[in-house]
Every structure is written in structure tokens, then in C-alpha cells.
């Protein structure tokens, strides 16, 4: 955990005071709605279809149990008793009243949580691998750098009014769980030949109406130079990014229009003029941040305790263990994913009671720590393997042991037309229907790893382009239709999916997905060839033939 010190707390509290003043001036009419809009967005407040929505940051996906309890409190006190975890390590509350927002933020500030820059045309919440610090084989904990970037990007005096939003993601593992290739800046931590820590810097990734996979702008930027290099990128973008058309304003369009070589040259020229300036991070500063992250003192425990051997004879436990429990860097411990995708439920939602219960379980079984991943699930990062059976029972009691992590019903979905004023179509009911169709665990297990991502509009909050199966809601003559892509992925081999055929109406969307899955089962070379690998091997055509033959 990173412990905020008095300086970090001062900034958060001062931001609450500032926002309280801004709300007061809006309510008194001193600020016009146009003036207030950008100010509220910069503090995570949207006006949705039915009410204001508050998006709260969970920097690099790490929460303490006391922080999660406070999120539960906000859900209960100011909202309707639940929250929605998003694809960028945020939580959203959908029914907040404007006049109560400052109090909700003040309650959150007491435990070091804020909503700064979770929206607006500025640098957004810095995201990272939800298994950071515990994944086997990780080079080093990327959250040290995430935190340095969090501080650097917070209330930046030059880059708070960029052409458009700007998102960072960092990973330090070979397998990318942070989806860095679909971010404005993606950072892959690695070491050079001298053993120094640095980053491959990728730029210009993003989804939305013009999706791009990020390109490498520099293979190695030394850790000392991370902030100055990032500043050079942001400065070039702030000056030359398009501001005439909101749909062409992201950095991906600038990179695309200039070409990566020309863009890299502009950045390099800028960087050379400032690289030895005040942004250089010396080792002492990096170590100071590192020292604020605390890690559990893991008591030595057996890898195969009796409790686990015994539970292995219990099929429901084994079904859950196989997809929800991952290897930990310390023998005797495990990382446990908590599925927020119950059959028939909206993906990513958790009730206040569940959040409280998870906090208690985190205290009991995970050194008080919880993680939030971009797949809209939670994780307990430090669970003793001997505690797995007991934890499973406790999770099952609160509806958080659905054994579907990484399976077909572990769906990513945006709030869609049920909440969002931008949406063209509903996302949640499609997801709910699919979880019912694939509710049989034996079938889901047979299908294997398969990610379905659903967005209710072209803005792609549900990351449909990079779902193994992507579903995009569109509107045709006042009706909801869905375009379906296959073969996308968001990991280190990120790719955009390919359209499989014409859009289908709401009533047929789930049927088409079932047909695609059936086609895969017939086409796969071996039972362990994943859906996405079959698509890679065969292309879209055999799928199209089978799915659209009778349509």
C-alpha cells in the first residue's frame, strides 16, 4: 500500500474545498453551466440521463480495506446502495445529488480517496496491473512509477486543458494486464543491459470511433527521465493536437497524421531541451516514494497445505479455484480474483454490503488490501493458500464466488443506455442475457478463455474493439442494433477485432454470440486452442459463413 503523507492529504483536502466553492458558485448562478461543466468534469462529475454521476479514482487499482469501507459508506449515504467498477480502475456512483457531492468527496478525502481528473480533457487516473507487486516474474513493482506519475499529473499547470482526455497505463510483467497498448501513453517497465530500470514508451493507442493500437516511440527511457520525457510528449500534444474537431482531438490522431517517426522527432527535439531540468528524478527521490509502499511480512507457509488437499475433492471449490486463483510470487500464497459478474447481474457492480464484507475478508485473509482490475473484477492480492477453502465459502455467501473469471460470462460492459447520456443502445441487458445463456459452468469451462466486451456506443468505454468478441451498440432508425467483431485482444499482443457481418437487432444479439461460440467449438484445432487463437489461425470468414448462413 502507498501511504499518503500530509502533503498528499493537503492537496486532496484543498481540492474538496475548491470544489465546494465551485458548486456553491454554480448553485448561486455565479458560474454558468458552460463554465461549470469543465470544472465538474475535472472532478469526476458527469450529468447522466437520470442524475449526476461521480467517478472516483482508484489509482493503479490499489485499495485498503478502510478505503473500500468508505466507498461503501458513500454508496449507502449518498447513492442507492451500490457502485459500479469501470474499465479504468475507477468506481462510479450513479445517483448522486449535486448539493451533496462536496460532502461525499470530503468523506472520501478522509481516507485519501479523490475524484480528481477522472474526467475532463486532462491527464486521467494512472492505471496499472492489478497484480502489481505480487505477480510472479514481475520486474519490479510498477506502482512506484504510477505514483510518481500520479503526483506529476495531478493539477498540472500546463496540461489541465489539453485538446482531449489523456490516459496512462503501466505494466512491469511480460503478460500485460493493464492494456497499455490501448492507452494514450503506455509504459512497459524493463531493464537495459546495464541493469537500469526504464520504460518502453508507447504512444497513440486508444479506442473510440477511430481505434489505434499504440506504437513504440522510444524503446528505452531511463527511469530518471520518465517525467521529462512524458512532459515532452504532453507539450507537443498540447501545442499541436487538433482542437477543431472533438473526434480528432486525441493524441492518436496527431500521431497518425504526423506519422510516428515525425511525431517522435518533435518529441525528441523538445525533450533534448529540457531533459536535464527540474523533472529529472534522482535515485533518492525514487527511493523515497518506494519507501512509502509497504508490503506484508508474509509468514512462511506450505504451498500444499492440508486444507487445500482436502478441498480439492469438492468439485464446486475446484471449479472456482481453477479460474479465480492465480499464482503469487511468494510460495504458500495466492492472488484471488472476485468475480463481479454473477449470472444475470450487471457487470462490475458491487453493493455497499458486499463492499463492507469484502473489506472484512481483506482484513482477515489479505493483509487489508484489495485490488481493482480493468476487467471490472476485484482481487485479494495476498491470500494464504491454506485459507482458500474458508475464503471461498465466505465469498460464496455474499455472491462473489461465481466461478467464471476469464470465461465467457466474465463480460466487460459499459453502463450503456440504462444510465449514459452518450449511449445509443443498452449494454447491461445484453451482458445479463449472455451470462444466463452461458450459466452452465461445464459448458463455459469447455469453451475456455473467452472475453466478451460490450459498448453501448462508439466511444467504446466497454472496450469492444479489443474483446475476443466485441459487441457495439448502434442506433438504426430508432432501434438498437449491435455490430459484432471477433479476434480483438487487449494484452501484449493487442489487436483490434474484425467485423463479422451486418449489425443485428437487440433480439438477435445473444443468438449470434451463441452461434459464434458454437462455430468456434466446431472449428478449433484442439480443446486448448483458445477462441482468439482459432480466429487468428482461420480468419473471420469461416465464422461468418457459419453464423450468417441462415441469417
Amino acid at each position, binding site marked *: 500500500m502507498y501511504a499518503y503523507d500530509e502533503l498528499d492529504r493537503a*492537496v486532496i483536502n*484543498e481540492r474538496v474545498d475548491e470544489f465546494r466553492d465551485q458548486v456553491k458558485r454554480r448553485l448561486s448562478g455565479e458560474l454558468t453551466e458552460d463554465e461549470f461543466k469543465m470544472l465538474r468534469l475535472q472532478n469526476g462529475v458527469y450529468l447522466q440521463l437520470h442524475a449526476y454521476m461521480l467517478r472516483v479514482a482508484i489509482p493503479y487499482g490499489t485499495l485498503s480495506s478502510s478505503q473500500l469501507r468508505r466507498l461503501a459508506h458513500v454508496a449507502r449515504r449518498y447513492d442507492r446502495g451500490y457502485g459500479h467498477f469501470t474499465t479504468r480502475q475507477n468506481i462510479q456512483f450513479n445517483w448522486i445529488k449535486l448539493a451533496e457531492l462536496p460532502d461525499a468527496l470530503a468523506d472520501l478525502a478522509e481516507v485519501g480517496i479523490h475524484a480528481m481528473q477522472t474526467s475532463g480533457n486532462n491527464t486521467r487516473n494512472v492505471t496499472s496491473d492489478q497484480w502489481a507487486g505480487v505477480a510472479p516474474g514481475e520486474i519490479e513493482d510498477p506502482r512506484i512509477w504510477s505514483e510518481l506519475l500520479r*503526483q506529476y499529473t495531478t*493539477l*498540472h*499547470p*500546463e496540461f489541465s486543458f489539453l485538446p482531449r482526455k489523456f490516459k496512462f497505463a503501466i505494466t512491469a510483467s511480460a503478460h500485460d494486464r493493464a492494456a497499455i497498448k490501448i492507452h494514450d501513453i503506455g509504459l512497459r517497465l524493463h531493464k537495459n543491459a546495464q541493469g537500469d530500470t526504464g520504460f518502453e514508451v508507447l504512444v497513440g493507442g486508444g479506442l473510440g470511433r477511430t481505434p489505434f493500437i499504440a506504437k513504440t516511440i522510444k524503446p528505452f527511457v531511463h527511469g530518471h527521465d520518465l517525467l521529462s520525457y512524458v512532459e515532452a510528449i504532453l507539450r507537443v500534444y498540447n501545442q499541436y493536437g487538433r482542437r477543431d474537431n472533438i473526434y480528432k482531438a486525441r493524441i492518436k490522431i496527431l500521431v497518425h497524421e504526423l506519422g510516428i517517426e515525425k511525431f517522435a522527432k518533435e518529441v525528441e527535439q523538445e525533450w533534448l531541451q529540457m531533459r536535464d531540468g527540474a523533472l529529472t528524478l534522482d535515485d533518492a527521490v525514487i527511493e523515497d516514494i518506494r519507501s512509502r509502499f509497504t508490503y506484508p511480512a508474509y509468514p512462511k507457509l506450505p504451498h500444499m497445505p492440508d486444507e487445500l488437499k482436502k478441498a480439492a475433492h469438492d468439485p464446486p471449490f475446484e471449479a472456482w479455484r481453477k479460474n479465480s486463483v492465480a499464482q503469487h510470487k511468494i510460495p504458500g500464497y495466492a492472488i484471488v480474483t472476485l468475480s463481479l459478474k454473477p449470472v444475470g447481474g450487471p457487470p462490475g457492480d458491487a453493493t455497499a454490503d458486499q463492499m463492507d464484507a469484502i473489506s472484512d475478508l481483506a482484513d482477515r485473509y489479505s493483509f487489508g488490501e484489495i485490488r481493482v482490475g480493468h476487467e471490472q473484477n476485484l482481487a485479494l492480492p495476498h491470500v494464504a493458500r491454506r485459507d482458500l477453502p474458508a475464503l471461498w465459502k465466505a465469498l460464496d455467501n455474499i455472491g462473489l464466488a461465481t466461478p467464471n473469471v476469464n470465461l465467457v460470462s466474465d463480460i466487460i460492459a459499459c453502463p450503456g443506455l440504462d444510465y449514459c447520456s452518450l449511449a445509443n443502445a443498452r449494454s447491461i441487458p445484453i451482458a445479463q442475457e449472455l451470462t444466463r445463456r452461458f450459466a452452465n459452468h461445464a459448458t463455459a469451462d469447455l469453451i475456455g478463455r473467452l472475453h466478451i466486451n460490450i459498448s453501448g456506443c462508439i466511444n467504446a468505454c466497454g472496450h469492444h474493439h479489443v474483446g475476443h468478441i466485441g459487441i457495439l451498440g448502434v442506433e438504426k432508425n430508432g432501434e438498437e442494433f449491435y455490430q459484432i467483431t471477433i479476434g480483438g485482444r487487449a494484452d501484449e499482443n493487442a489487436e483490434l477485432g474484425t467485423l463479422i457481418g451486418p449489425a443485428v437487432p437487440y433480439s438477435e444479439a445473444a443468438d449470434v454470440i451463441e452461434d459464434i461460440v458454437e462455430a468456434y467449438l466446431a472449428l478449433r484445432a484442439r480443446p486448448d486452442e483458445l477462441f482468439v487463437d482459432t480466429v487468428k489461425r482461420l480468419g473471420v470468414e469461416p465464422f461468418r459463413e457459419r453464423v450468417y448462413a441462415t441469417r
Partner: protein
Amino acid sequence: MPLVKNGKITGDIFVAIAEQAEIPDDGAILISSARFLADAEALSRRAGRTGVIWPNNRDVDDLVPYLGRLAVIALVFPTFRDGRAYTQARLLRERHGYRGELRATGQVLRDQFLFMLRAGFDAFEVKKPGDAEAFAGTVKRYSVFYQPTGDGRITALHRRMLLRHSESASQ
């Protein structure tokens, strides 16, 4: 539109010269970038003080040869949501060492004062009188700053290091 300088509302001695109007030899004036660049050598040596209104889509590099002779550079925020002038301000102050008045013009509102100050602006043509009156209080909203800019404020990272040193010295 009130002008705030050195944190206080003050009169503006600079007169904006219309595009067609004749440029006087003396007196403090503000002229457009196009007019200035058309005869920059002479204009930057006129007897009166000269200021330039510089658009936010033109490189400030073009101004560099004249920086020592300019009394005012006025940068423009066509709307407060367009942040290009923050970069121009920092480049003028921190890279090119401009020491004259750096004025924020356009949609200059209360909630951006501190960002502008940190970027190097020291004069503000404020849109709303109420905002101008609130200037001194508004720029004290924050006591901690995460980024180093040319304004000399010490950053949180640096403050922590100083704190560590003083702690170890007192042990």
C-alpha cells in the same frame, strides 16, 4: 475588463491599437502579432513601450529575437478550455528567459488563475469583476504543488527530501 497585476486590480496603461489605426511613436501600446512581425525591428525600438498580442497557434520562437525589448506579451485563451497558451507561457519564461509582463487575455476566469500564475503569467485581463476581486484569495487555494515550473514554488517531492534531511540531521 479589470486588469490584475501583482495580485491587485490596477489601471491599464497599455492602449490596444486597432488594425488600421496609425501606430504612435510614444505611449504604451499593444499591437497584433501580424503588425508587429511586419516591422518588428523598428517597432521593438520605438520610444514608447511596446506590447504584442500573440495568438495561441503561432510558435513563440518567432518572438525570441525581440524578447528583451518587449514590455508586454499578451497570450490568448479564446475559451478557458483551450490550454495552448500555458505552454507558450512556460516556454517564454523558462526556456527563453522573458522577464517582461506576461498577460493572460480572453476567457480568463477565477478557476484558472493559479494554473496561469504557475505557468508564468503575472498580469490577468479578468473577464468578470467578481473574479478579479477574488484573485488574492483564489491563488492561495493550494499549499502543495507537485510539478516544478518556473514560478519557484518548491515541489512536494523536494519538500519531502528536505524533510528527510532535517529529520536525519536532528537525530
